[in-house]
């Protein structure tokens, strides 16, 4: 290393470490700024996933129905599961009209209880069925047919069977008019197979629409339909929130940039005497500029890294507190933060330097 270069680094080091708390203030300002920007950007990127996940609690976003009066192929449910992967919830339903001992007609549905419980989290159920012969009774069935006994008989095509009532189902919709029994029991007794699949596929509106198209080509003859009201509401809310978050991120970034800019500018201006001394003892304009830029660069890089770590922490804390979900730090944010920090620091150093260049060092040293 030449003498010149080693001198340069020596002055740079002294400038960063040996001058009280001035570089520290710049570092803190930049770190706070990077923390804020990292946090909002991470939340911005993670928001869409979280909202899409929230919308899944509405239940099925795709239905697959067999043509009128037919059932689905035997392997339909497992076939769909293998296409969509483990993230999707696939619930088969089979329906039959049965009669109670009071000769009242009622719709009985067979389904997989564990799966339907995962799919329709809004179902209010007093107790979920455990055993094979347990049934979930809709609230209106219970009040109309007075099925309040612990067990009752159902009659299907002259064949009687006995079920135990496990609990009552409240939804405020058509489900209250039905009795739900485990699918295995239903198939054994009626030898009817499922005619409907309710599917909750993960992802955005566009991804779900793509899944619908995929299922349509893989299940010819079946009616594969998106649940339009759900997807439309989801698309609208997600895109609106994305825009609002974008505007917020922009405003916050603008404000913190302003804060950093004024702090850095003043810290350079305060050092006009250093600047004047360096010029007076013969260093070139380029060297002085490089020195200030090197300082700004070092501080900016350290601040960007520290801010990234802190900001990811803040973002993780917010999503934990608000969405009860863990966000993984967004690596894609890091280069953005570094770039913004460096650009900001260099810009903040350039403006006052350009102003100082026009002044004679002698004037500064005399204190004018």
């Amino acid at each position: 290393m030449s003498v010149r270069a080693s001198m340069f680094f020596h002055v740079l080091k002294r400038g960063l470490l040996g001058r009280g708390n001035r570089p520290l203030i710049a570092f803190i300002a930049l770190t706070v700024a990077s923390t804020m920007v990292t946090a909002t950007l991470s939340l911005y990127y993670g928001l869409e996933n979280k909202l899409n996940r929230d919308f899944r609690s509405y239940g099925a976003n795709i239905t697959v129905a067999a043509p009128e009066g037919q059932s689905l192929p035997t392997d339909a449910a497992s076939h769909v599961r293998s296409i969509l992967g483990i993230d999707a919830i696939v619930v088969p339903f089979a329906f039959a009209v049965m009669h109670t001992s009071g000769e009242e007609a009622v719709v009985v549905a067979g389904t997989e209880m564990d799966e339907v419980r995962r799919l329709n989290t809004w179902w209010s159920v007093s107790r979920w069925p455990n055993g094979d012969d347990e049934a979930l009774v809709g609230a209106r069935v219970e009040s109309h047919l007075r099925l309040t006994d612990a067990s009752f008989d159902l009659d299907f095509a002259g064949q009687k069977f006995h079920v135990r009532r496990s609990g009552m189902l409240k939804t405020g919709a058509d489900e209250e008019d039905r009795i739900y029994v485990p699918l295995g029991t239903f198939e054994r007794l009626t030898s009817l197979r499922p005619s409907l699949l309710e599917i909750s596929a993960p992802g955005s509106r566009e991804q779900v629409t793509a899944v619908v198209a995929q299922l349509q080509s893989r299940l010819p003859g079946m009616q594969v339909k998106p649940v339009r009201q759900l997807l439309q509401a989801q698309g609208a809310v997600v895109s609106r929130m994305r825009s609002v978050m974008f505007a917020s991120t922009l405003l916050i970034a603008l404000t913190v940039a302003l804060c950093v800019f004024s702090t850095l500018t003043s810290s350079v201006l305060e050092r006009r005497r250093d600047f004047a001394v360096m010029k007076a003892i013969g260093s070139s304009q380029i060297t002085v500029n490089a020195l200030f830029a090197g300082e700004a660069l070092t501080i900016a890089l350290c601040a960007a890294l520290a801010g990234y770590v802190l900001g990811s922490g803040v973002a993780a804390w917010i999503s934990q507190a608000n969405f009860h979900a863990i966000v993984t730090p967004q690596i894609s944010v890091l280069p953005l933060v570094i770039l913004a920090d460096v650009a900001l620091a260099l810009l903040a150093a350039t403006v006052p330097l350009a102003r100082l260049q026009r002044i004679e060092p002698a004037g500064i040293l005399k204190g004018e």
Partner: protein
Amino acid sequence: MFLRLLYQSFRRQQRRKLLAGFAVTLGVAVATAMIAVGVDVGDKINRELRGYGANIVVYPDDQALSVRVGDQELKPASPGTHLKESTLPNIRGIFWGHNILAFAPFLEEQVQGPSGTLRIIGTYFDKPLRFGTEEFSTGVEKLYPWWKVEGTWPRDSGTDVLVGSQLATRLGKQPGDSIALSRLSMRIGGILTTGGSEDVAIVAPLALVQQLAHASDAVDKIYVSALTKPEDAFARRDPDRMTAADRDRWYCSPYANSIALQLREVFPGARAEQIRQAAQNEGTLLSHISGMMLLIALASLIAAALAVSAAMATTILERRQEVGLMKSLGATAPTIASLFVSEAALLALGAGILGFLLGDAIAQRIGQAVFHSSVAITPVLLPMVMFLALLVTVGGSAAAILRALKLDPVLVLRGDA
């Protein structure tokens, strides 16, 4: 003398004041905009979610169980009781009437079509109604914004009908064709796609179906879309077992359950239930979004405070020589401090009002661009924001003022500090 100093300070240091003022203006603007948007976003998203459809249903208490599998009605509807159509406008008169965004009545009937029995559903499309002196219109066009009609929506007073898309394909019908229903010929206004069971049915004006069913003034079901407050533990309590004060509070909160109760009071002998799929999930989503926006608003508040105090500190540190001069001329520390504080306060008030107006404009821009509606700004926000601006500006200057006062005037004036 003090006032003259203050006046001269603003007159002579315009560039510096402009910079500090700009920082305060921007900071207040960002804080105002984010608080306004953050507070309002819950209501906006709530309306957006109401596009999901109804969240409350009203039907006669003794309505028979529906026995329908898929699209087949397996038991002819028994002549149960009906709700009265003439009572419908009173829905607007309930305590939370203004939270009712849309509602639509439904009456179903089986009719003889060209090939077997068909389901015909009577409803309002966009029916003008009057409650007291208030005129409004409601119907499925508002209640179910995802219903897609190819052709034109029928008029509620006309005899045009909509045919479900699957049914239309089966019958080979186009918009403009006519269809024979129970020996009457009706014009098809449009083809309806909903993704639900209406795709295999006919949807007609309510009056027409009442005529076919020989049931004037009759309605089977009313679907209501209301703006509600997310359900909490208090909302789930049984109003009959509350104290009078609690019950009043429950009744006067826009919970889905309390709006359902108020609807029940309008229709004697009816049941009103929240549709849990819509009502329950909305709450989680809304609380997530509002919580998120409040945190973001808080973050922008912190950012704004930082920006303002940094700018103030910078402008004061640049004026060390002035402080030194004043001190050497015999000004006491409190005098100098009060001069700087008054300057900061004036700046905060002036730039704060400007910032509030700018923030208002930014909030409206966001509202228009994102939600196509204006953002409500509560008047309370102005004093709140002004107070914060004052606090941050003066607070941000305080540390710098103290630092400037501690310096030895001799050193400052020689330029050594």
